[in-house]
């Protein structure tokens, strides 16, 4: 039976029992009172009837008027007391019986008084008188006995009810005690004992033995509780095994990693260390867990270590490199501390990883040295290329001095400019120490100034203005773009301002759409002859421009309505450079 029903039943039973007991006691006490009152009344009646019997005797003996008066008074009192209402008596002799019996007395007494006072002494009168005396005495005696019997019955009834009251007063507490004992026994058997078993099982489980079970068969709430405990223990055991397996797996991982891993709480006490960490301190894991940071190796004495730990507890990630002696060698350690931040923002501790970066440092130094050597070498290469191109250009100039034909000398001069424009690229490269990219704006400025300086007299003069936005361009794209600029600016100088004409040349370079660049050359000179088509001309310079533009994958557009204008749009880089010290180009 469920305990709730059982205890409800017990409570109801106790209430019913208690109320019944109260009702019984109350009823019995009321009965005691009632019977006490009846006993008192019966006693009074018995005393009055006895008194009447004595008065009857007195009157019979002496015929005194006083006795007659008292007899009548006593009779009236008696009848009145029997007339008084009240609950009916349980006695076999009742007030009604006595009242009925008493009614015969006045007739007999009056008859006796009549005979006594008549003065007649004949035989009949004597017989009558004797009969009346006998009847009166007998009836009064009978009534007296009945009254005493009534009193006796009332006394007996009261004694019975008092005994019942005493029995109830004794037995009810005994029954209550028995009932409470039964309830306590039931409580102990059905509740306390099973709960004790669950308590014991809980203590055993709390001590780590999750195999403990209650195995209760009770079909009540405590039984449900015990089964709930068993189910919980099953789940706990299963999950603990899973956690232990996961923990072993993770420990296996952390123990086999070539790093020292630890978790330190907000009081700077170790909560977790892996095998490497234990090896460092030459202590078992259990000896480390729970001890403070400062208890090992004088870590707290190192102000950098101390401040790093403080920073981690303040919520900051940090990395610290330091040197320590490990098995007779000096090792460089990189310690990273990552704070363990709770959901509410408080720092519960930090994760610590110590990585031996001694080898990594050595390798990095070697790479840096090799890179430096390569840069020197590349610089030298570019320098030599530039020098060689300048030598070629100088040779062409020396040779052109012997040429009498101005057209041929001009061709040589054009070739010289083209070689110089290429040499300028290499110069910019080794000067910039970036061997993959060149600042094209700087290059444009330098090239334009060089071309301006190389222009001879006989032709008109033009001022030239360069507006270039800094941008980095790969070397393999900078050379064709530079050659195109060389051709366009050379053409402007060569054809735009004939016969002493003056004017202005604009060179602009700007970037757009991320990696797109627009290079424009525009003059306000004489323009092109009528019918001139820049796409189909047999001019070597313009053919080079078209060819190089195709090489760049760029597009060319010409405008010669007023002066000459050419605009090249091309991509600044084709592929990212694989060899670069700086991933992002910074303008110098």
């Amino acid at each position, binding site marked *: 039976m469920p305990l709730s029903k059982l205890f409800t039943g017990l409570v109801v039973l106790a209430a019913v029992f208690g109320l019944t007991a109260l009702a019984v006691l109350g009823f019995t006490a009321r009965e005691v009172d009632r019977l006490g009152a009846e006993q008192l009344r019966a006693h009074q009646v018995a005393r009055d009837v006895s008194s009447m019997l004595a008065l009857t005797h007195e009157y019979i003996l002496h015929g005194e008027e006083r006795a007659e008066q008292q007899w009548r008074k006593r009779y009236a009192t008696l009848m009145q007391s029997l007339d008084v209402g009240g609950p009916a008596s349980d006695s*076999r002799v009742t007030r009604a*019986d006595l009242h009925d019996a008493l*009614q*015969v007395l006045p*007739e*007999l007494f009056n*008859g006796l008084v009549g005979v006594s006072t008549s003065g007649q002494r004949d035989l*009949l009168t004597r*017989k*009558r008188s*004797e*009969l*009346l005396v*006998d*009847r009166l*005495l*007998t*009836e009064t*005696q*009978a009534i007296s*006995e009945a009254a*005493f*019997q009534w009193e*006796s019955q009332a006394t*007996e009834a009261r004694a019975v009810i008092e005994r019942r009251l005493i029995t109830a007063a004794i037995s009810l507490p005994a029954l209550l005690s028995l009932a409470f004992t039964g309830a306590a026994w039931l409580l102990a058997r059905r509740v306390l004992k099973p709960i004790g078993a669950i308590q014991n099982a809980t203590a055993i489980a709390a001590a780590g033995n999750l195999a403990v079970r209650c195995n209760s068969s009770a079909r009540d709430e405590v039984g449900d509780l015990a089964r709930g405990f068993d189910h919980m223990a099953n789940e706990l055991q299963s999950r603990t095994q899973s956690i232990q397996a996961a923990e072993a797996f993770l420990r296996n991982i952390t123990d086999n990693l070539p790093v020292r891993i630890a978790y330190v709480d907000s009081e700077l006490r170790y909560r977790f260390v892996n095998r490497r960490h234990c090896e460092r301190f030459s202590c078992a894991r259990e000896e480390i867990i729970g001890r403070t940071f400062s208890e090992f190796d004088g870590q707290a004495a190192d102000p950098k270590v101390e401040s790093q730990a403080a920073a981690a507890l303040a919520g900051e990630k940090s990395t610290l490199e330091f040197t320590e002696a490990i098995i007779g060698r000096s090792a460089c350690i990189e310690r990273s501390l990552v704070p363990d931040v709770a959901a509410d923002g408080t720092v519960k501790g930090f994760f610590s990883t110590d990585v031996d970066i001694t080898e990594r440092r050595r390798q990095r130094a070697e790479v840096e040295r090799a890179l430096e050597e390569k840069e020197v070498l590349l610089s030298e290469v570019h320098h030599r290329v530039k020098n060689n191109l300048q030598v070629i250009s100088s040779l062409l100039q020396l040779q052109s001095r012997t040429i009498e034909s101005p057209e041929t000398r001009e061709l040589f001069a054009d070739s010289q400019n083209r070689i110089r424009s290429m040499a300028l690229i290499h110069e910019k490269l080794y000067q910039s120490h970036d061997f993959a990219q060149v600042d094209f704006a700087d290059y444009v400025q330098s090239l334009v100034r060089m071309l301006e300086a190389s222009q001879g007299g006989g032709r008109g003069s033009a001022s030239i203005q360069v507006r270039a936005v800094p941008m980095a361009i790969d070397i393999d794209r900078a050379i064709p773009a530079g050659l195109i600029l060389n051709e366009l600016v050379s053409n402007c100088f060569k054809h735009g301002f004939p016969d002493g004409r003056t004017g202005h040349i604009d060179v602009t370079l700007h970037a757009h759409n991320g990696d797109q660049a627009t290079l424009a050359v525009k003059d306000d000179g004489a323009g092109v002859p009528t019918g001139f088509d820049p796409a189909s001309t047999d001019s070597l310079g313009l053919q080079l421009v078209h060819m190089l533009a195709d090489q760049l994958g760029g597009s060319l557009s010409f405008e010669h309505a007023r002066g000459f204008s050419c605009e090249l749009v091309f991509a600044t880089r084709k592929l990212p450079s694989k060899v670069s010290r700086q991933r992002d180009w910074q303008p110098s």
Partner: protein
Amino acid sequence: MSVRAWTTRRILGLIMLLSLTFECVAGELVFAVARTAMSLPIYVAQSEGYFAAENVSVRITDCAFGKLCLSQLLDGKAALCTAADLPIVFASFTSNRFAILATLATNRSDAKIVTRKSSKVRAPADLRGKKVGVAVGTSAHYFLDSVALLSGLDPASIQLVDLRTDEMTAQLLTNRVDALSAFEPFAFQAAKALADDALVLSTSRTYTLTWNIVAAKDGLTANDRDVEGILRALDRAIHLIEIDPGRAQSILKARLDLNDEGVAWVWPDLAFELGLTQSLIKTMEGEARWALRSGYAQGREPNYLRYIQEGPLNRVKPGSVAIVR
């Protein structure tokens, strides 16, 4: 007196004594019981097996009224009998070998004066010179005298006709008597026979009859345990009458061949209570004086304490004996 004569007397006395001891046949007590409603506790005890429950073997023999029952007891034909107070009083003048064990019932109206309406007797005073049938020496006789005296009528002015109980009704019906002074159930039988012509005079409370258990003194001690058993059975029967009057009335009807009308006639006047009271002695003393005055008995007024054996009742029902000895 010669020795022979003395010896003969002793032998005769012994024979008489033996004849007056309890009538016990094979351990069976003979109980002479008058056929009246006042004997109901005895009928109930027998019917309900209360005597057997007390391990007392009782054989009930019926008799018409108490005087005859007492005669049977005095004749040694019964160990116990029922009797009203008056037959006991008469017997007390001639014998002292019996004792009253207990009063079984009282009745204020057992005896009645039944007359015909046509006889013009309307009150006891009208009985002067009338023939009144009565069983002389019974309580009905004492009742008639008392009624007459209390009414200012000289009993001698009434013509008494001594009748057997079984002839009373016929005598009244045939006008051989003007009235009857009879106890129950004969008063009822007469009234029923007269039907609408019956008239019962108002005489209530004139006389309270006591109905008693009487035992022969000899052998009383030897049968003390049986007597106590009988008294316990009778007390138990009275208790049943109180708590289950319907059942008691059924037993009464079956035992006395009464119908509902007969039971309704007698039942209101019956009061069953096992006891021994001082009023019993007073009643008997008064009756003894009446008997002496009237010349129905001779000798000295007996001391009725000697005729009362309260020991068994005291043991069976303590507190029910109100006689000081």
